[in-house]
């Protein structure tokens, strides 16, 4: 790994230019946040083989939320209560902007850039009542907030730009949390949804689950280039119910639920932490750090198999399958039913791996 100091020195000339491209950061394939052994937090840039290109200190635990399509800039969101987000210069290693959530709002850990990179959309909720909001930020104006609109649901989590570049898909988790202590307030009546929104906030499509699955909070998303959306869920109902934790949807179509065999679902413990299509786009996987398990499904919804790995959570498409990361520092290449270790970093990888370049469409 290049040390940050040495790395900065070599980039001194390059970083003088504004809006540096990803090449200046070494063309990382992925970004991932992590905790280092000293208890500090970092944002790391990774090559496809898992090798580390850079490591930038973060002031607190954060999510690697999203990567700008061209500029070497990433947005990291603070953990709860999520009052701020940082725009990080991945070439220079500095914090370029600190975005403050509007008064009474909090960031919910995810965001997405527009295809041309001129807008940043952030997933937010109003503290009082948990109504979902999309914050809109003008990138060229130094990430100035220029507006916002409703997500048409409560407690939104991940949001993504659709491959058409003209719409967003939002995972409305459906959970209302107490403004101060984050206690869940509406588990009996929650209604998660998948909302498709125009970039001005117009509602294009709202997808809800059958009533017996309404306690399945929709939280994370994976997109395929043809518009197929995978959504990963977290069960809030009775333990042991073993509900499906992954759904597939295409606008205008019906939801396909992806169900693993009962014993496999029980191992997942009702919890999916990340979702991604594989590099070929023919299959999709979810991870459960609680179960230490990854489940693979065909794009038709058929169960393909499991991979066991303690504390596995981060997941992204890889040319040969998937890249998975875990809290023990492991980076694994999952190739069909086979997992092999790429590297073990002296870091605890955070929940997500963010692909760089486009929006991570398979």
């Amino acid at each position, binding site marked *: 790994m290049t040390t940050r100091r040495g790395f900065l020195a070599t980039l001194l000339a390059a970083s003088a230019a504004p809006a540096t491209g990803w090449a200046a950061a070494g063309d990382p394939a992925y970004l991932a946040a992590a905790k280092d052994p000293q208890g500090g937090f970092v944002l790391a840039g990774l090559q496809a083989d898992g090798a580390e290109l850079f490591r930038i200190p973060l002031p607190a635990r954060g999510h690697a939320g999203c990567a700008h399509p061209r500029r070497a800039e990433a947005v990291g969101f603070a953990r709860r209560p999520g009052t701020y987000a940082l725009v990080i210069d991945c070439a220079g290693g500095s914090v370029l902007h600190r975005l403050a959530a509007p008064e009474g709002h909090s960031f919910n850990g995810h965001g997405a850039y527009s295809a041309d990179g001129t807008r940043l959309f952030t997933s937010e909720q109003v503290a009082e009542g948990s109504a979902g909001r999309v914050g809109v930020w003008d990138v060229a104006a130094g990430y100035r907030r220029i507006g916002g609109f409703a997500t048409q649901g409560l407690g939104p989590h991940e949001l993504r730009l659709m491959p058409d570049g003209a719409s967003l898909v939002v995972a409305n988790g459906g959970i209302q949390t107490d403004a101060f202590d984050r206690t869940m307030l509406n588990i009996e009546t929650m209604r998660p949804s998948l909302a498709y929104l125009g970039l001005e906030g117009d509602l294009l499509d709202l997808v809800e689950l059958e009533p017996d699955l309404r306690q399945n909070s929709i939280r994370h998303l994976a997109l395929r280039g043809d518009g197929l959306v995978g959504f990963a869920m977290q069960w809030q109902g*009775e333990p042991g119910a073993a509900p499906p934790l992954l759904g597939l949807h295409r606008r205008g179509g019906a939801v396909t639920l992806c169900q693993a065999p009962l*014993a496999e679902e*029980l*191992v997942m413990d009702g919890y999916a932490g990340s979702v991604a299509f594989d590099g070929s786009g023919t299959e999709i996987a979810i991870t459960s750090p609680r179960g230490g398990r990854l489940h693979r499904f065909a794009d038709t919804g058929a169960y393909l198999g499991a991979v066991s790995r303690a504390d*596995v959570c981060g997941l992204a498409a890889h040319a040969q399958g998937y890249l998975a990361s875990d809290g023990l520092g492991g980076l694994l290449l999952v190739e069909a039913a086979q997992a*092999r270790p790429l590297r073990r970093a002296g870091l605890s990888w955070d929940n997500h791996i963010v692909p760089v370049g486009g929006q991570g469409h398979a």
Partner: protein
Amino acid sequence: MILRATLCLLCLASPLRAGVPEALTGHILPGYAGFAEAAGDLAEAARQDCTAPALRARYQLAFDAWTVVGDIRMGPSETGALAVVFWPDARGFTPRTLQGFIADQAPVGRDPAAYAEASIAARGLFALEQMLYGAEFAGYAPGSYACALVQTMTADMAAQAQALQDGWRDGFAPVLLSAGGPGNASFLSETEAMAALYTQVMSSLEVTADTRLGRPLGSFDRPRPTRAEAWRAGRSLRNVLLYARAARDLAVMLAPGPLPQTDAALARLEELAGRVSDPGLQDLDDPAARLRLEIVQQQVRTLRDTIGAELGAPLGLSAGFNSADGD
């Protein structure tokens, strides 16, 4: 279902291979061999006489043997254990599935090989508990469908036990022992293997405190005795003790030296459990009985904390990064 307890990580730089081979050869592999033998004995007994009264003693022995390794959830046991112990069964899958088989005289109930594909709710120790002790099931006659079903279920469980033994001995033990080796995607270092085994110890005691005891205790106003584990077989309290002994035994195998505080905590647990009046925990409406069980629950947590302090802390163990913090 079974609570996944805190995953523990080893943060030590130095390899700690010692403990993993000992845990395998001194506890885990003999444990699966013992269960395979006991499950085989139960199946053989059922071939001779499949009626419930004839099988209960062998059933109890098989359950005893299971508890030595019954809370281990890794390798072949990660999903395999769930087909041996499908519990808790909050939605009543087990009695419903068995009733369906009996009502339909389902052919699968006469075919041990096909039974491997039956719902896990209808397999293993808790499905057998319904057949051998459940008021609505246990009165079946020799030669009945239910009697054949019990023969099938015991044969299926014996096959499962054999598969677990083989899977551990030939498949997963080498993976644990080659931790950190090239191509080992399960354990990227020797310390990860150690941490994974230690996690089994801690998880077991958490499941016992939170689920085996926590479920029947319910709330003071509403105790839920029929949520106790294996209450029909009258062995709820026995399971608490046997699983705790197994946790202690595995901890000892992992430890570089003796664990006197752990042993003392287990001895105290046995003493407190001796004061519990009903081994099936069906008297929890009585506040005095409830209090005695709460004291047992507290002591299980004390045992866990003692192992954490005596074994875990010196090794630098802490909670998992992602599993401990949802997103």
